[in-house]
């Protein structure tokens, strides 16, 4: 099952930011999204995750196959690491959070409340959620923010295993993840050139 984007245009705040984006992602592949601040990486990923409607174009993906990792980690500060992770496992109907805890080096912190984690530990917990989601396509928005180099390498390992197991990933990031096998998609050519207005079709009458 492939994940295919065709001629996609996405909008934010009523303005089209990217247009004509096309991409095919097969199992085992990773694609890195590049582009300056504000070009629309987050917007693109949110659209692909189904959180906002596309302006034009089509997104084809197997149903319920996408795990979205946003800027925010969605952690509850009064719950412990284990409770946080177990909640997401239950929501996704998977079981066994143990491997995810171990893989993301969180086993020692299992009973710590999320409020007492450092920023990097919080981030690791947010990434562990991807593992318990059990979904093949990962859409990640700057997953390594506030991680130190050791943790970045740990994450790259996890990612490589995920790809080897038939998963795929689309990652927006500014830094080098140490994944030479990943394709790079530069978004600059898709930048919308003014004048194209958002709300589907009809709104063009406002110009």
């Amino acid at each position: 099952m492939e994940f295919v984007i065709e001629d996609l245009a996405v909008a934010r705040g009523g303005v089209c930011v990217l247009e004509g984006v096309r991409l095919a992602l097969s199992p085992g592949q990773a694609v890195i999204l590049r582009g300056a601040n504000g070009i629309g990486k987050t917007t693109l990923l949110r659209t692909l995750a189904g959180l906002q409607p596309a302006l034009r174009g089509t997104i084809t993906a197997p149903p319920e196959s996408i795990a979205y990792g946003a800027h925010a980690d969605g952690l509850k500060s009064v719950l412990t690491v284990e409770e946080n992770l177990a909640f997401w496992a239950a929501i996704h109907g998977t079981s066994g959070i143990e491997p995810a805890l171990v893989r993301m080096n969180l086993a020692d912190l299992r009973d710590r409340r999320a409020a007492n984690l450092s920023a990097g530990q919080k981030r690791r917990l947010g990434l562990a959620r991807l593992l318990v989601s059990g979904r093949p396509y990962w859409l990640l928005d700057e997953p390594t923010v506030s991680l130190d180099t050791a943790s970045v390498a740990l994450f790259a390992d996890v990612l490589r295993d995920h790809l080897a197991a038939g998963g795929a990933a689309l990652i927006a990031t500014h830094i080098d993840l140490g994944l030479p096998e990943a394709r790079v998609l530069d978004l600059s050519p898709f930048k919308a050139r003014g004048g194209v207005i958002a709300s589907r079709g009809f709104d063009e009458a406002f110009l």
Partner: protein
Amino acid sequence: MIALLIRDLRLALRAGGGFGLGLAFFLLVAVLVPLGVGPEGTTLAKIAPGVLWVGALLACLLSLDRIFALDFEDGTLDLLATAPIPLEGVVAIKAFAHWLVTGLPLVLAAPVLGVLLHLPQAGYGWLVLSLLLGTPGLSAIGAFGAALTVGLKRGGLLLSLLVLPLYVPTLIFGAEVVKRGAAGMAVEVPLLLLAGITLGAQAALPFASALALRINLR
């Protein structure tokens, strides 16, 4: 779904979750009104059903913004929207959790406050029953209001303004049940209408709320 319910209850019970605050507010209103109105028992007895219902309604109201706002701010709502459970279910569960945390304690505490307000003997049973039937509706309606205002900063006052008019039928029938019950009159009609509103709200509003959430997440 059960996991979501458990998590919401757990969050409410841990520090900062606000469990019990609604109850305290209910108590405060029941205390403030006699302070403002004056201590005569007969007047208080007459207004007790109405005041208790208005108090329950306000206590419910003040905790509404917690239903979605915290999850929205820390990104959980985004993730729940992409999770394999329907957003309508999420809304219904969260409204139910809100009722367990806010509405149910109010139901249990109401008889005690009835004493403070000199509620006539015959009214207590009806008070509890009407609140039991009515407050789940309040939570469902409130969840709709909370979904409408979820993206707004400090939208508490706006939320009140949107939700309170929607509470009017529930309030009228609820207070009417208690009033009639306390006076020994027949209560079937308002009781049925109250139950009808709650059932209708529980059945239909989660869809509207989920739609509002989706719009706000966009």
